[in-house]
């Protein structure tokens, strides 16, 4: 039976979809069967980040309604045979979701994949509640910025009261990802540090991602940043995916990158 991980943030625009795509690719490259599902009904985006928008024929709502089989709707990524994708419906709205149908879909996916990764919609409305309903674990994505952290805390509160696991008396394990860290600003005291954020949210950290302009280029092309081995954000996602697969990987000090003269000198010849 696979593990269901919901990727949540509360606030929109913090890198939730980018995280879902990269973590999905990273897990697949770790030789695990992985499916990423876009739960953002009406605002489909994960397909573009994965570069699969032209291959979407059927969506998850059609699967849930029994209009098409799951196998027909799943799209195999060319990046790895281990990676599949299920698109959100672009035409319907969030009210089409119901718990019974979602549970069946998730159980079917769990039977076929080691990891089932769900990209939650922003906000904490019903679409979000449905995404976390049957999650075993959750990845919480935040930016080092007050509104993102406050909204994440609200989303965590809902996760801890409305998910099925919690209702059954168990715990949904949480992983924190701090995204878009600007090391210079952290150093000068203009940006919340990871320690500050961990003090406030008090959940285990799974990775820190530095701000990286290469992310825009990656999404422009539909090639997840994790495939760009030179990019710092890509490397950070690679480490995160490894940790999610149970590998012991040291936490990199993203906030204090090497910046000695020698390092800069080397950089000139890259």
């Amino acid at each position, binding site marked *: 039976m696979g593990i269901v991980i919901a990727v949540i943030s509360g606030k929109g625009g913090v890198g939730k979809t980018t995280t879902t795509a990269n973590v999905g690719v990273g897990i697949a490259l770790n030789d695990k069967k992985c499916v990423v599902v876009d739960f953002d009904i009406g605002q489909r985006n994960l397909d573009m980040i994965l570069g699969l928008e032209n291959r979407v024929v059927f969506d998850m709502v059609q699967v849930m309604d029994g209009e098409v089989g799951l196998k027909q709707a799943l799209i195999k990524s060319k990046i790895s045979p281990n990676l599949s994708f299920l698109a959100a419906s672009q035409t319907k709205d969030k009210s089409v979701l119901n718990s019974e149908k979602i549970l069946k879909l998730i159980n079917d996916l769990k039977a076929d994949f080691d990891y089932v990764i769900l990209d939650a919609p922003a906000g904490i409305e019903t679409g979000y509640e449905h995404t976390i309903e049957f999650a075993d674990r959750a990845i919480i994505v935040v930016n080092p910025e007050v509104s993102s952290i406050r909204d994440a805390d609200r989303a965590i509160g809902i996760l801890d009261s409305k998910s099925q696991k919690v209702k059954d008396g168990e715990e949904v394990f949480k992983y924190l990802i701090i995204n878009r860290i600007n090391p210079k600003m952290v150093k000068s005291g203009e940006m919340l540090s990871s320690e500050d954020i961990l003090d*406030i949210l008090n959940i285990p950290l799974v990775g820190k991602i530095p701000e990286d302009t290469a992310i825009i280029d990656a999404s422009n092309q539909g090639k997840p940043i994790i495939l760009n081995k030179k990019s710092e954000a890509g490397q950070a996602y690679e480490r995160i995916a490894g940790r999610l697969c149970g590998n012991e990987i040291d936490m990199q000090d993203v906030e204090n990158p090497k910046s000695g003269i020698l390092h800069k000198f080397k950089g000139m010849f890259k």
Partner: protein
Amino acid sequence: MFGFFRKKSSATTAKDRLTIAIMTDRENADAYPFMDQLKAEIIEVVKKYIGVKAIEIKKETQGDIDALSIDIKLEEK
């Protein structure tokens, strides 16, 4: 070295403000665990008389007085 003369960094301000805001948020969320049930029952009662679209209940504190504010959004005609 010159930190002595500088005012508090904005990250520290952010942390202080966040800590208080989140504490208040959590208090409100935990204040009444029966909130969902309460919502459902109020909807049932009001529905007997008029269509209800949504309901929101918030705990508000003004000075020494705690109050529940209940907003009921009616169905469009």
